[in-house]
């Protein structure tokens, strides 16, 4: 410090050696790549500050952790189902025949320095990856951030979610331990449950009858090459669209549909995000070093005969497992010599349908509302009661499937009968979403009413004043302009009017749309208008 202050009077504008080098290097790169335009554009991308806007980042960073730890493991893992006799450090498996995949995973866990930590980092990061994607999607959904112009990015995000699940499942199957083998057997059953083509597809995938000797090698290629390649590409497009579409923001003073208020990416946000990456990395490593995950040595090598009690997939596949558990008995159809396994096929269809609804929801909502405007202001969930209620119903549906996947553990830990748990889940799978829908919608409307009340009349201050006439009143404090802005600035939708089209006809589609629209917007609380506020000021 002292030296620079000494030199300052003498050196007027002479750049230091370091600055000269940086300038030269930047120029060198820019002259050959014209990257300055991109940096200028990117560097000025604005990120509004809200905690829920960082969930996607969590997913991104945990993906990077997955890539790093996964790369480490590829150095040691052998994706082969060739039987070998285990001769590593873990005593209760010594001399047991298992696939090379299982043996190399055991070596990775017991005999390679840092291997177990890397396995645990990889697996915990994978769980976090999918979980943060899920939470990120919920944030997008409940704030309506999927509306125009972001529908396509929602779709890409959905693809990323499905890819993440596929990555997770293929990875879970690689060690070829008892648990993963049982999971794979269920997938095999799901595939075989598809009418007519199921068996063919299963034989194609496993290279013969399950389990065969090919599936680990094939899943390995999918897991480390094909799926990550697609995932990274989709991730790139996802981020590009994020930049092109700009970030949404919550309503606030100075925040409009035409601007984004926040911190530019350079330099503060980039520094913050870089730090955030290391925080995520740190949290994952901390968890991985303290908590065991997927102890394949306890599960032992895969053998099609034993199935352990409490066999579950990783959490993100749980909803599929739960769907299978909730099928009532007897859903099979015999057509001559063929048996149609509807008990497996219908849950598969339900899952596909559920995921399709998730993927296409933005388009459905856009059609119902007939709204073709761009939206850059994120909704507060209460201000879109029907959407929020649909979301709550969807979450409940998913949660019931999820809970059903752990029905046996719920039964043992809460001292219930497993039949009771299953029946409760079956009942709540259907009734739960309806209850959730109605309750959420009412809660949203009530919250809107409360907001309206506060915007118009202020909040109760708790200060009781006695007037000269002897009357007692409680003084209501008015909100300041900033706070009130948040409460009153949301869009007011009305049900679409049923109007004849250019040919003077009312089509069936329009009729349906109008009905859907009135279902969507029938119950609504209009935002407080300026005149209402002005009028209300006289009251208190």
């Amino acid at each position: 410090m002292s030296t620079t202050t000494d030199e300052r009077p003498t050196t007027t504008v002479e750049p230091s050696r370091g600055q000269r080098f940086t300038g030269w290097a930047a120029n060198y790169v820019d002259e050959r790549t014209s990257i300055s335009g991109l940096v200028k554009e990117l560097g000025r991308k604005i990120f509004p500050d809200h905690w829920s806007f960082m969930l996607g980042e969590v997913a991104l960073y945990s993906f990077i952790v997955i890539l790093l730890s996964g790369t480490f493991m590829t150095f040691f893992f052998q994706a082969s189902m060739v039987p070998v006799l285990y001769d590593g450090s873990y005593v209760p498996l010594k001399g047991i025949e298992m696939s090379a995949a299982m043996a190399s995973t055991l070596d990775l866990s017991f005999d390679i320095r840092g291997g177990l930590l890397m396995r645990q980092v990889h697996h915990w990061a994978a769980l976090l990856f999918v979980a943060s994607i899920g939470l990120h999607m919920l944030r997008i959904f409940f704030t309506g951030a999927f509306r125009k112009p972001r529908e396509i990015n929602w779709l890409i995000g959905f693809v990323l979610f499905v890819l993440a699940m596929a990555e997770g499942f293929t990875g879970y199957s690689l060690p070829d331990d008892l648990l993963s083998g049982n999971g794979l057997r269920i997938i095999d059953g799901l595939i075989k449950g598809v009418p007519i083509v199921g068996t063919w597809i299963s034989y194609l995938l496993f290279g013969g009858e399950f389990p065969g000797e090919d599936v680990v090698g094939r899943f390995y290629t999918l897991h480390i090459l094909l799926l990550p390649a697609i995932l990274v590409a989709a991730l790139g497009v996802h981020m590009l669209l994020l930049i092109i579409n700009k970030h949404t923001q919550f309503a606030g003073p100075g925040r409009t549909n035409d601007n984004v208020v926040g911190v530019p990416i350079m330099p503060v946000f980039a520094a913050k995000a870089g730090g955030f990456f290391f925080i995520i990395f740190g949290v994952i490593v901390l968890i991985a070093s303290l908590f065991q995950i997927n102890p394949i040595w306890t599960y032992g090598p895969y053998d099609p005969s034993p199935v352990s009690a409490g066999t579950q997939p990783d959490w993100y596949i749980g909803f599929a497992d739960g769907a299978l558990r909730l099928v009532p008995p007897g859903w099979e159809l015999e057509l001559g010599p063929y048996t149609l396994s509807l008990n497996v096929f219908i849950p598969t269809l339900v899952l596909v349908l559920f995921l399709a609804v998730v993927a296409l929801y933005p388009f459905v909502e856009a059609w119902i509302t007939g709204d073709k405007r761009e939206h850059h202001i994120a909704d507060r969930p209460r201000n879109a009661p029907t959407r929020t209620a649909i979301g709550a119903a969807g979450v409940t549906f998913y949660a019931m499937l999820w809970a059903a996947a752990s029905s046996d553990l719920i039964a043992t830990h809460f001292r219930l009968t497993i039949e009771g748990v299953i029946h409760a889940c079956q009942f709540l799978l259907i009734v739960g979403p309806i209850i959730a829908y109605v309750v959420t919608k009412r809660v949203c409307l009530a919250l809107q009413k409360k907001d309206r009340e506060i915007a118009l009349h202020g909040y109760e201050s708790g200060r009781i004043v006695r007037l000269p006439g002897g009357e007692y009143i409680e003084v209501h404090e008015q909100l300041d302009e900033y706070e009130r802005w948040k409460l009153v600035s949301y869009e007011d939708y009305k049900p679409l009017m049923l109007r004849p089209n250019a040919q003077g006809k009312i089509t069936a589609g329009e009729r349906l749309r109008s009905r859907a629209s009135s279902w969507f917007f029938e119950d609504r609380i209009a935002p407080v208008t300026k005149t209402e506020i002005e009028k209300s000021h006289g009251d208190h």
Partner: protein
Amino acid sequence: MANKPKTSARRDRGRRHPLATVALIMVGLLGTGGAYALFTTSASAETSTAAEAQVEDGSKLFAANCATCHGMNLQGTTQAPSLIGVGAAAVDFQVGTGRIPLAATGPQAEEKPVQFTQEQVAALAAYVASMGPGPGIPSEEYLGGEGDAAVGAELFRINCAMCHNVAGAGGALTEGKFAPPLGGVSATHIYEAMITGPQNMPVFNDANISPEDKANIITYLKYLDETPSVGGFGLGDLGPVSEGLFIWIFGLGAIVAITIWLTAKSN
């Protein structure tokens, strides 16, 4: 390891049964009688007299504590099964783990503090064994945990894991019944459970799993008990469900807390 002293301590402390005083006086009287007999008979008759005394002792205990449900002659009633031919092992397991006497009727008898002293359990076992041949108390050679853990682990996965879970964490059965967790269960009780098939458990007789293989299974379970979980806290050995709950509640919970902290406005 840690469980062992605890279990024995619990046994010693065991709440005194109302009839314990009676039993104690009985033991005292029989002891005196036995001592008298000891002086008056030859050495070979000594042991048989001691055994007879034990059976006699067990008979009294049985009549006082068990006969209400199992019948005076072990023939069983509508409340409980016949005990003729169940053997000493069944009694030692059921009474020795506190499952019997039942606290209440329910889906299955549950483990609870043992109601009898070790001597009383032995006397009951001897009495029941005297009434009809059945599996006896296993001999020490199979209980030391000196078998082959790898073979035991494989047998455990094939024969036991479907109910008791691959890590011995227990699992659900139908109608509120369950396979209990196996952590901390004594070798004798594991062996006895295999040969007698208590509650809903099937019998694994010596033709099915040889005594040596039973010893291997016991060795593996001992290994699980004595080896700390390799990768850190085991989260109850429940597999992906507890892992999933953990990442959602604590993993993602911590991260959301961090995001809130990062975006918080300074006051």
